[in-house]
């Protein structure tokens, strides 16, 4: 089955049962509807998104699985980080609803046509979407929370390690 797809698309084999296809954003709906309807890859297993902030893009991987659940095909496409928009896959796969909802909240990607892009895991979130790389979680925590002070006799680990090393070196030299 994968052979006939290979004739049509430029599919790269990553592992024995994992394949990859890189497409343009414009051919996204056409390719996905063709592959899911006319080949063995009938189900959507995951929509994975990675933020490549240095290239100003999001890389999305739509991972399709065969009916036998023995091969996976990653369909990769790039979308710009600003004004990231994509058509929804709700018409092909009902499970895309929750995945798109998750990505919408975590990255701010808008899936056109998905009616359920409301709160998923966060409540009253007012910052930028948390999974974008420019969001600094440590700065957010320091701003919003206080930490408990450590014990009074606690020591800085790095200083302590340095001191112990120097001590060991001194002992070694003394033994010589």
């Amino acid at each position: 089955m994968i052979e006939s797809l290979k004739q049509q698309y430029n599919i790269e084999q990553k592992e024995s049962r994992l394949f990859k296809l890189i497409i343009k954003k414009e051919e996204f709906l056409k390719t996905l509807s063709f592959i899911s309807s006319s080949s063995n890859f009938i189900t959507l297993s995951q929509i994975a998104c990675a933020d490549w902030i240095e290239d100003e893009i999001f890389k999305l991987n739509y991972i399709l699985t065969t009916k036998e659940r023995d091969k996976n095909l990653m369909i990769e496409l790039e979308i710009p980080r600003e004004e990231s928009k994509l058509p929804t896959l709700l018409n092909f796969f009902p499970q895309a609803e929750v995945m798109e909802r998750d990505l919408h909240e975590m990255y701010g990607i808008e899936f056109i046509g998905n009616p359920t892009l409301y709160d998923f895991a966060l409540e009253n979130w007012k910052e930028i979407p948390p999974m974008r790389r420019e969001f600094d979680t440590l700065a957010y925590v320091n701003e919003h929370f206080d930490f408990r002070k450590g014990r009074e006799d606690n020591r800085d680990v790095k200083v302590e390690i340095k001191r112990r090393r120097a001590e060991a070196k001194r002992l070694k030299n003394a033994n010589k």
Partner: protein
Amino acid sequence: MQEGFIDYQKVLNNEEHAIKSTQSVIQKAVDWFRSKSMFVLAYGTGCGAIEMPPTFTSRYDIERLGVVGVATPRQADILIVSGYCSYKTLKRVIRSYEQMNEPKFIIALGSCTINGGMYWDSYNTIKRLEDYIPVDMFVNGCMPRPEALIEGFVKLQDNIKNAKKEAGYIKYRENNEFYKANQKKIFGDNIEPSYEANFEGMNR
């Protein structure tokens, strides 16, 4: 007993903490009775929920100490906050706590309730539970073992029986502004959990 574990029977019969309070005999008797029947509301806020079934079933059998699980906040004396609290959960924890009848106590499980634990740099979990509600007993560990939980219960029984520490609910009553201000700091004005999710554009 093996090294590292404190024998809880020994803790139970510990004589060195003799009753020093100036309470009346009746009050002492009431406290003693109270320490022997603990009705627990186990809110599984986090990972700690997984050590709850072993603690409450036949192997560790905490029921022999008079600790019984109940279903609703209104019957419970003790709230177990089992692990990290996200923003969303903390609102529900506060609501559950405020629904409980006095006297009421809180046991907090896990390092994450003490100082954030594993999730010290997470944007969605609170770091110190006692800023928001009064905690009577912390049980540390990630995860605390059932033995540690039992030890926490025994210590709390001891505290209640001998009136050693000011109970949390009294603190909450008397310093209510402090707790409410802390809650307001992270939640803004909607401290009550909003049961109206954002259904905009949703027609199902």
